[in-house]
């Protein structure tokens, strides 16, 4: 392993060698049946900030983890500074000067910042020797980059933004020349994100190479030198940022020109069906995630909630769905208070819920398809009498839904895990919509779902609206929100910061989502 810090000379923009910092040749990776990276080729030039964009599940994290030695590619070659390097583990990657900030932080929560930074680079068998050196080095990094954190604070006591700093410090402490950041801004406030970008620019100007993964095209345009686009496991294009446009990138990312406009007429809103009043929700650590939020959803309308991931939308949905107990506030369904009802009772009252994460919540992947088609409704008298389940009735019902929603393969006895993502989502959607609920709350309805299925699901959602149901939609895809919603609420830092109509420009909404304008 390299000594834990080598101070690099200041090399403003100058190229040391002509080789790219990283070159990937024919990288291929499968997880079982999922082909996450298909024959990827990529060059990242030294001293640049290289953006990588792509939809959820496109394979970005997988590719970066391969470079960092966290996963091993099934095929292909990685060249660092022109030389092929067999990266079998992260140790090799670290030794080659690669540092990575993972999408999900890799920190030991009950350790101090200092311990986390030192982990793996302790500088000797005994801790005592390394500690003072590490303290000094942290101090230096703090002054050089303005990355200040208390070295003796416990990670679990730090806010996420600071935790991310620790991750960056970890990489810098190991004197990484190539820094990979996987969706770093998803958890940052705009101010924090701006600060991060300043740091990245300083790093680049020192000759380091940065790879930045993000969903946000604005960020790509603002900071990167080059940008590569991934779609469904493939690397579809690389562009100089200066020579491309947001529109082109969007098209490359989703593989078609403009997003489908959902055919729908004007909404005919009726009486208020779902009403949220002064709702506050806290997470397990007691941090306020939803802050005094109030709004109504009427019959016959779709209310969309826009916002950057992590601004409280998930918690809001879960609170309404009875999965999370609100700290305070009221939720009314058709005038009835439901803030403390459990999900089973909410279903009985006519509130259906398409959860954000089908694998984690919406489905039991080891169940057969028909068993999932009644999840949550299994106590309904239609599916059995007394204590017993009526499997025949359930299967007949499942077959009906399979036909109606064109779920493939049309086999109710197939294990749910063996359906593709899009078809799995259809199973969930069919179950929740076909119950004919009064109100439906929907999280990320089309995450990781193909275009055909997106269209189908969107159409069903609009049909529900036209049938006079109240729908609440949460999605991090602004386009989806804009094309489906009749009204849009924007959430930022747990608060609803404003309401717009779908005609509001992307710009306006984007600014609101960033907490800049209301």
């Amino acid at each position: 392993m390299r000594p834990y810090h080598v101070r690099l000379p200041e090399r403003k923009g100058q190229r040391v060698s002509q080789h790219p910092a990283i070159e990937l040749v024919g990288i291929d990776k499968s997880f079982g049946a999922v082909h996450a990276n298909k024959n990827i080729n990529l060059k990242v030039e030294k001293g640049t900030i290289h953006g990588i964009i792509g939809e959820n599940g496109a394979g970005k994290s997988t590719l970066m983890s391969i470079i960092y030695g966290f996963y091993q590619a099934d095929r292909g070659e990685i060249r660092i500074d022109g030389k092929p390097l067999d990266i079998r583990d992260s140790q090799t990657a670290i030794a080659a000067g690669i540092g990575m900030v993972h999408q999900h932080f890799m920190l030991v929560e009950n350790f101090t910042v200092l311990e986390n930074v030192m982990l793996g680079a302790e500088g000797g068998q005994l801790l005592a020797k390394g500690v003072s050196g590490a303290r000094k080095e942290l101090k230096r990094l703090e002054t050089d980059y303005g990355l200040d954190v208390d070295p003796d604070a416990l990670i679990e006591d730090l806010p996420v933004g600071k935790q991310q700093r620790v991750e960056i410090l970890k990489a810098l402490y190991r004197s990484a020349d190539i820094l990979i950041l996987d969706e770093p801004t998803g958890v940052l406030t705009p101010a924090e994100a701006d600060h991060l970008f300043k740091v990245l620019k300083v790093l680049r100007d020192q000759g380091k190479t940065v790879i930045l993964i993000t969903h946000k095209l604005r960020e790509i345009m603002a900071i990167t030198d080059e940008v590569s686009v991934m779609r469904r496991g493939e690397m579809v294009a690389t562009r100089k940022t200066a020579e491309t446009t947001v529109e082109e990138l969007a098209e490359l990312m989703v593989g078609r020109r403009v997003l489908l406009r959902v055919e729908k007429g004007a909404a005919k809103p009726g009486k208020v069906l779902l009403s949220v009043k002064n709702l506050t929700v806290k997470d397990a650590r007691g941090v306020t995630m939803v802050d005094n939020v109030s709004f109504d959803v009427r019959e016959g309308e779709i209310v969309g909630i826009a916002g950057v991931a992590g601004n409280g939308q998930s918690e809001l949905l879960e609170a309404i769905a009875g999965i999370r107990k609100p700290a305070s506030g009221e939720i009314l369904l058709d005038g009835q208070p439901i803030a403390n009802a459990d999900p089973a009772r909410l279903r009985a009252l006519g509130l259906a819920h398409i959860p954000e994460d089908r694998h984690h919540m919406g489905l039991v992947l080891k169940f057969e398809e028909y068993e999932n088609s009644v999840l949550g409704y299994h106590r309904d008298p239609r599916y059995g009498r007394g204590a017993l389940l009526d499997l025949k009735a359930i299967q007949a019902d499942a077959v009906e839904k399979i036909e109606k929603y064109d779920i493939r393969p049309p086999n109710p006895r197939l294990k749910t895990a063996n359906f593709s993502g899009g078809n799995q989502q259809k199973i969930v959607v069919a179950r929740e919509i076909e119950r004919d609920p009064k109100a439906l709350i929907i999280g990320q309805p089309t995450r990781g779902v193909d275009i055909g299925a997106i269209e189908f699901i969107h159409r069903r959602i609009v049909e529900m609206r036209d049938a006079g149901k109240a729908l609440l939609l949460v999605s991090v895809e602004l386009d989806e929100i804009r094309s489906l919603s009749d009204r849009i609420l924007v959430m930022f830092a747990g608060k609803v910061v404003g309401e717009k109509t779908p005609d509001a420009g992307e710009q306006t909404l984007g600014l609101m989502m960033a907490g800049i304008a209301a």
Partner: protein
Amino acid sequence: MEFYDIVVSILGSTIRLSIPLLFTALAGLFTERAGVFDIGLEGKMLAAAFASACVAYVTGNAWLGLLGGIGVSILFSLIHGFASITNRGNQIVSGVALNFVAAGLTVVLGQAWFGQGGRTPQISGEARFSPITLPFVDAMRDVPFIGPLYVHVISGNNILTYLAFLAVPITWWVLFRTRFGLRLRAVGENPGAVDTAGISVTWLRYRAVIVAGFLCGFSGAYLSIAQSAAFIKDMSAGKGYIALAALIFAKWKPVPVMFACLLFGFLDAFANFMQGKAVPGIGEVPVQIFQALPYILTCILLAGFIGVAHPPKAGGVPYTKER
């Protein structure tokens, strides 16, 4: 008998009875801090007791006996590691399985080799760790208060007893003052952090279970060639589980582990002392109450009524990157 003499006698007994718990609980501390649950402590202790007695009997050397116990105990640890680290099997199931294998194999082999119903022959002399008399015992004997304590509690134990108490600060030092300890604690909380720091999770956890095997070797040897003078079937008699209870009771911290083991040893010693004696006003207290007390205390602790015990976060979960 003077009250103070009773106290001294019970304390001496407490020490002797808590040593196997202490070694074993420290062993558990290492694996569980590394995120590998180990119900198999009981089996390792038993297997080590058997191996120690066999080797000591054959070679006539207690130290070789200890070595034999350590070797077998580490072998069991490696099987546990192979199942739960390499093959990502269920750690509890693996531990339970090893307890059975140890309980059965010791008797099967013991019977086959010695034909004494699973017992090893009695061992004596050099083959056994005998009590050591510390210097100044005679001079101290008549010193009031401290004297009896020194003579009957501090002196007169075998070498393994002193090693057990030495193991406590060493464990603390290793866990909190060395690189190995830092990494070990980290891997029990978030193996991903260790992995991405360029450290092999597998090898680290293997080292943790090997250390546990090493320590269980001592507890086994203590049972068969220090505390008694032969292996007897099932001689661990649930001590592995009590050690586990002590570990939980001590919230996975070395010094509290020592006190928890002393407490449980004391309960045992006190039960022995109280046996057949009547408590004024209550009458004879059933020994079963003392026998059950460590378990009851542990349940109360687990229920969070006296401070919640948080096990290492990644404990019990095999580390997988690819789903």
